[in-house]
């Protein structure tokens, strides 16, 4: 690997953050950092003593060139006049990566833009890579990125970690972006994207050691990721948690995730990510679905539903109650949930409990409804199988069907 590439890989985000802090413009910072790397590739015969300082110096000079060439009143912010691009302050700047992350995840940007920007500016992915992961053409993704960067500059979105009174809401926006990246990787079996989300989460947790929710999110992702190999059949079908071959779970990841969630919970400030991670840890420790500590899972989902009441969490609670106390109790809870009539997993969870209670025709009807609503091909195959079994009177093996934990 060329020395430039190595420095770039290792320090890209820090350099970009430092340049953005000084230039006040993310797009300009990226372009001039690119310029500097191109120049380094051409001119480095040996690596300079301080390669980061070299790249930052060149990038800053190229930024000034670019501003002069543009002949427009850039920079727009008075505090970043060209004269103030002092080299000392640039090279000795502290770690500005957290400012970069918060800026990319600012709620004044659309969620799509936040996700794309975080993946590009913080994780270093290209527009083409991000587009592939989110099924968006590269040109559309590039346009989305440019628009977002210009909005940051023109609308005056501060390049800063938000003030204390804004921090809880803004941190949850940051964590939601990371989890959305992970979920996209997870559901589309894109391991690289899921790993990128885990890396982002670890970066945030290391930059914000006093936020147990950041650690909780990392734990949750690591634990979910530990099941990656077991989640799909060789033909590409989705395998439910209850049916997964647990010997395929990545034990190292389970140990890592479990110890992370314990570390987070020891801070005694539980939140939604920590609780979901704790649920995933309980699953991860069970040798079989029957071996699972269902009362513990019910307790955790109950706590979670109090803190962030959502119908999907209630559905998961209902499924856990069915496992802990029996299908009648579970069904009673699930039937009381409103707002999930368009959600195929609500219908398939009902269908499963009805089936276990021997109410075959109601179960078939519910599987039919789930089948109408499911869009993923592997979900549809599974539901169709269940539907046909009931219609044909075949008695399937009797296992709980868990909706994929939220």
């Amino acid at each position, binding site marked *: 690997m060329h020395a430039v590439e190595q420095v770039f890989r290792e320090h890209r985000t820090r350099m970009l953050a430092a340049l953005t802090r000084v230039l006040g413009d993310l797009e300009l910072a990226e372009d001039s950092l690119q310029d500097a790397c191109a120049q380094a590739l051409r001119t480095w015969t040996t690596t300079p003593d301080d390669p980061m300082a070299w790249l930052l110096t060149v990038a800053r000079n190229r930024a000034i060139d670019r501003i002069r060439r543009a002949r427009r*009143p850039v920079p*727009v*912010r008075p505090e970043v006049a060209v004269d103030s691009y002092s080299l000392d302050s640039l090279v000795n700047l502290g770690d500005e990566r957290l400012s970069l992350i918060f800026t990319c995840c*600012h709620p*004044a940007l659309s969620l799509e833009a936040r996700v794309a920007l975080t993946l590009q500016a913080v994780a270093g992915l290209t527009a083409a890579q991000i587009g592939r992961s989110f099924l968006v053409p590269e040109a559309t993704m590039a346009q989305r990125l440019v628009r977002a960067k210009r909005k940051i500059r*023109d*609308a*005056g*979105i*501060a390049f800063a970690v*938000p*003030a204390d009174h*804004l921090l809880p809401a803004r941190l949850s926006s940051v964590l939601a972006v990371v989890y959305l990246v992970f979920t996209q990787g997870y559901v589309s079996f894109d391991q690289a994207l899921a790993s990128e989300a885990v890396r982002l989460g670890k970066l945030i947790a290391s930059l914000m050691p006093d936020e147990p929710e950041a650690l909780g999110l990392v734990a949750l992702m690591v634990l979910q990721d530990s099941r990656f190999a077991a989640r799909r059949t060789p033909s590409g079908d989705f395998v439910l948690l209850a049916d997964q071959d647990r010997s395929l779970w990545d034990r190292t990841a389970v140990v890592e995730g479990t110890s992370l969630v314990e570390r987070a919970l020891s801070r005694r400030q539980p939140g939604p990510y920590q609780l979901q991670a704790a649920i995933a840890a309980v699953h991860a420790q069970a040798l079989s679905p029957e071996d699972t500590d269902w009362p513990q899972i019910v307790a955790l989902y109950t706590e979670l539903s109090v803190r962030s009441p959502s119908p999907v969490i209630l559905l998961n609670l209902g499924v856990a109650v069915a496992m802990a106390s029996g299908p009648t109790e579970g069904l009673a809870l699930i039937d009381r949930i409103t707002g999930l009539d368009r959600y195929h997993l609500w219908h398939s969870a009902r269908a499963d409990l009805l089936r276990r209670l021997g109410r075959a025709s109601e179960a078939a009807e519910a599987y039919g409804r789930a089948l109408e609503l499911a869009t993923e091909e592997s979900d549809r195959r599974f539901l169709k199988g269940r539907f046909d079994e009931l219609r044909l009177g075949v008695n399937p093996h009797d296992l709980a069907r868990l909706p994929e934990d939220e």
Partner: protein
Amino acid sequence: MRYMMLVYGCHREELPDGYDQVNAYVKDLIARGVFVGADPLHLPDTATTVQVRSDETLITDGPYAETHEALGGYFMVDCANLDEAIELAELCPLAKLGSIEIRPVLENTFR
């Protein structure tokens, strides 16, 4: 930075004590040192539209925007960044009923 805060879908007459509340809000903006200007507008049925096409002036009555999308007035503030502008918009009594669109002013256009 200067920001225009455009108030949509709400007129101060629709708020109980609207006049007093908006007055208090403007006093607050002045006290914070961010106030540039503000005006309420008459209802959209007083609107007149002018267009000049091939040297011909076309004058039309309206448009009568739907109540929820009608521009009711504006506040102009000068503050540090978008976060501060968002906080100022949150404090506006009209935000409770309508919506406030924050638009950064394109500076240095006229010299």
